């Protein structure tokens, strides 16, 4: 039950893109076409889940015991950068087809603030999810990270679909490109506000 609450909360209610503004660069940058949005979402999903798991372990089994929590930001971003590189190399070896689909997005992901953002949120913020306020445990962390990245994918794919439609219309000149995309995002965010209060 609790995991279901985490899923619904992270995907719909506190959508990482539309409510928390994490990962806006790829959201606006690579959402022109539905196919690239799907590829990006897949890559982000994979990297967020994996890197949050690793940084969670790093925080509680290295930084806290050694009392070097002040190295948090620097070590997290290094781990994420290294991880993204590793995923790229492994993917190239074991699944060339998947690498073809996700490969070009991987280098962009290191500087996607959603990845570092989720990694930092789970070790600094208390969550409620219907029960007492508490820090997340390992399983909850992984579920939360996965759910958040699903939320990213959902918003991204919906948004790309909308932008493909808009591209066919005549848009006033100053609105072309990013401004009309932002107006679309605004309406999408409004739609997602309808989920608030659900959990």
């Amino acid at each position, binding site marked *: 039950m609790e995991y279901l609450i985490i899923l619904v909360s992270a995907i719909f209610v506190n959508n990482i893109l*539309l*409510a*928390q*503004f*994490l*990962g*806006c*660069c790829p*959201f*606006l940058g690579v959402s022109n076409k539905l196919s690239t949005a799907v590829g990006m979402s897949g890559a982000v999903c994979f990297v967020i889940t994996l890197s949050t798991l690793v940084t969670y372990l790093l925080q509680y089994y290295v930084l806290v015991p050694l009392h070097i929590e*002040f*190295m*948090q*930001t*620097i070590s997290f*971003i*290094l781990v994420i*950068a290294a991880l993204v590189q590793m995923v790229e190399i492994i993917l190239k070896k074991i699944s060339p087809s998947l690498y073809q689909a996700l490969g070009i997005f991987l280098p962009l992901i*290191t*500087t*996607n*603030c959603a*990845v*570092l*953002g989720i990694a*930092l*949120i789970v070790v*600094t913020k208390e969550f409620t999810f219907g029960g007492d306020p508490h820090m997340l445990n390992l399983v909850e962390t992984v579920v939360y990270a996965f759910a958040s990245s699903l939320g990213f994918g959902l918003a991204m794919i919906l948004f790309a679909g909308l932008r493909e439609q808009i591209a066919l219309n005549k848009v006033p*000149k*100053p*609105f*072309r490109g*990013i*401004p*009309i995309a*932002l*107006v679309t*995002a*605004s*309406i999408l*965010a*409004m739609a*997602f*506000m309808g989920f608030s209060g659900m959990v």
Partner: protein
Amino acid sequence: MGKFKLITKGLVKENPTFVLLLGMCPTLATTTSAINGMGMGLATMFVLVLSNMAISATAPYIPDKVRIPSYIVIIAAFVTVLQFIMQAYTPAMYETLGLFIPLIVVNCIVLGRAEAFANKNSVIDSACDGLGIGLGFTMSLTILGLVREILGSGSAFGFKFISGDGILAFVLAPGAFLALAYLIVLFRKITKMN
């Protein structure tokens, strides 16, 4: 390019928010009021100036292939320094901006300036560049914050001028996207860039 030009180009010609459209996450997330926007802008400027200087000074000694990781480490170090300073001397602002202070590390503006400018220019020029882009970012965030604050809570820089609520949506997520969209359009119209 003169030092003065380096500093002023970030305000209009290479404005990071309205022209280059970089650093969207903090732009949208922290501009619930003019003060918050300004705080975020100044925090980014602090990191931008220092990391630009450090990267410009160390660039000749960094092999090309480990360039990006090195820059990220340098930027992350300055961000953490900023975190400590803010926690100690501006704890309220630190709490308000929260997650978005450590996230300056992955702000594309900072890494972008390192790649595009600091690693091939002198320390002084890089500092001016950081200052200029930082000022442009601060100005944009303050304007966006001000617009959202006036519409959303009926106040400006914390001074309330209407009783009751404003248009709440402007403080929340949809208003952030909408206000930014219209400001970009306005900016394009005024500067006739498009």
